[in-house]
Each structure stands twice: as C-alpha cells, then as structure tokens.
C-alpha cells in the first residue's frame, strides 16, 4: 500500500479504508503542518487545522477528481481554504500575525544544531525569519510559503488559488522585496 499512488490511495479512502488514509496522512502531514504553521504563525492552531484538513479529506473524498489524479493540489487547496477562513474568522487577516506567537521551537528539526550556542543562534535566526514572514500581508505570505517552502510550481499555485501566474510572480517579487527590508537589520 505504501507504494500506491495518491490517486489509488484516495480510491481506497473513498471506500473507507483507514489504512490507505493513514498512508496518505504520513505522506503529507509534515508539508501541510508546516504550511499552516508558517501561514498562521501558531503551532497550536496549525495542529488543529492539520486535523481539520485531514478530517475534510475523509469526508469529502467523493469530491476528489480521480481523473486529474492531482491529490497534492486538492489537499493544499483544502488546507489553504481552511487556513484562510480561520484567519478571517479570527480577524487576523488584516492585522497580520502577532509575531510573538512564533517562539523558536524547543526541539528544532535541524539535526546539525547540537551545540548550545549554535542551537541558540539557529533559534534566533528562525525567530527572525518567522517574524519577518509574519509581517507580510496574508497574500504575500501565502505565495512565499507555497513557492519557497512547499516547492510548488507557479502553475500549481495558480490552479489552487485561481490566480493568474503573472500576478503570483509579481506578488512573489513584492514579498521578497519586503522581506529584504524587514531582514535588513539582521544584515541580510
């Protein structure tokens, strides 16, 4: 089952196969979680929204277009819609992120960060980047996360967000320019 394609696994999920569902979850949990953490700036919220995203995958499995087979795009669309509506609900959308919500993780995923000084430095740098990203508008933050961190193609993001590629690229340039300004104090 681990070697099955996403579309094959979704077919099984449609028939209420929880093993296939678990394989899909294991394949995408990190990507979706990190996408939401970076988008919302809150680990607790990301945890809840990750749960909500995969719950929706289970209940909306019938709406997945088997012919296209693009599970990744479908999943990101669900996650993005959930994250957007959550931010809108909490009225964060126009106030941008409370940067203090993103403290450096206690257990960084970086295995190289073994020495205390290096670890501290790494945590500081991560915090600085998180704060800078949190100060971008949701639309700019969204494109940076989807493009840079999630490594999606512009064409995929355009399909997901129903936005022309040219607009997305313009937003990306703008976001990078703003990030440069925000990160200037740390000698970017």
């Amino acid at each position, binding site marked *: 089952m681990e070697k099955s394609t996403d579309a094959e696994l979704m077919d099984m999920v449609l028939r*209420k196969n*929880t093993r296939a569902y*678990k394989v899909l*979850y*294991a394949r995408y*949990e*990190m990507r979706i*979680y*990190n996408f939401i*953490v*970076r988008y919302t700036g809150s*680990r607790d919220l*990301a*945890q809840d929204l*990750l*749960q909500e995203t*995969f*719950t929706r995958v*289970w*209940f909306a499995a019938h709406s997945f277009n088997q012919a296209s087979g693009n599970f990744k795009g479908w999943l990101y669309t669900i996650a993005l819609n959930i994250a957007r509506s959550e931010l809108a609900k909490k009225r964060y959308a126009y106030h941008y992120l409370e940067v203090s919500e993103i403290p450096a*993780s206690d257990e*960084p*995923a*970086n295995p190289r960060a073994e020495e205390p000084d290096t670890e501290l430095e*790494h945590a500081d*740098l*991560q915090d*600085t*980047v*998180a704060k800078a*990203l949190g100060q971008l508008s949701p639309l700019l933050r969204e494109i*940076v996360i989807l*493009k*840079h*961190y999630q490594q999606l*193609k*512009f*064409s995929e993001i355009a399909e997901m967000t129903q936005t022309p590629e*040219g607009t997305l*690229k313009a937003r*990306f*340039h703008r976001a*990078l320019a703003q*990030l*440069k300004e925000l*990160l200037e104090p740390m000698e*970017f």
Partner: protein
Amino acid sequence: MPHENKDELLRLFYREAAPPEEQKARQHFAACEDCREYMRFLTQMNSTLNRWQDEKPLPETFDRILAGIPPERPQAIHAWPAVSARPIFTIAFALVFIVLLIYFVQSRISMFPFWTSWSQHWIIQTLGSFGFVAVAFLALGTFITLSLAPILYFELNKRALRI
C-alpha cells in the same frame, strides 16, 4: 531575454524553465550584471528563508483525526435472506399426503358403481385412473378455494372495508 524580465529569472531559479529557455538565459547572464545580481539576491533570500526549518506535528494527531470520524462499518454481505424451513416441510408433507390420498382413492375407485361405465370414456382412457382422480382433486380444491375466496377476502379486509 531582456534582463529586466524578473519572472523569467524566477522560473530559472526554481528550475521551472524548459531546457532551451534555460540555455538561452544562461548565455544572457554571462553578459548581464543586473540579472546576475537578481539571481544572487534570490539565492541569498533562499538561504535566509531556509533558516526556518520544518517541524513535526504531534505524533498523536492521526489518532485524534481517527477518533473524529465514524467507525468503519463492516461491508454488507450479500446473502440470501434466511428462509424458515417450516413452511417447506409443511408443503412437502401436504404434497405427499395428497399424492397418497389420490393413490388410495384410485385404488378403491373400481368399487364405485359408476366407474364401470365411466372407465370406457376417452378422457379417462387417456388420463388413467390416477390421472382422473388427480384432476378430480384439483377441480375440487379449486372449487373449494373459489367458494371460500370471498369469505376470506372479507374476513381479511374487515377493517379496511369497515364491516
């Protein structure tokens, strides 16, 4: 490629450009300081953003998700509905009883006075004594059923007919 086309540089940086396009752009770089500068900026920004590394969600998340979805129902097994053996045995016994009764009657039929003259009739010649008794029973059964049908009908639909 005009050097101010940053979109093309983005496609190139993220390896979304087609090989001939990439080849062309690389040739352009060699002569264009602005494009090289923008690519350096993209590289630098890339390494800066990479400082925020991926984290892992809580390990119990999947169990929480499973707890929120309804339990899997066992697949319905398509089998014949259970059939009670009682009516089958009743019908079998009734058939055996009727056959034995017909056999008994046909073995005694020659005792009846009308049989001598009737036995010469072509219908009885064709059916034989057993066939004749069987048909007689069938006719009698049909007559009784049809006679009782209105009574049964009214009895069963008493409430609906408000009798």
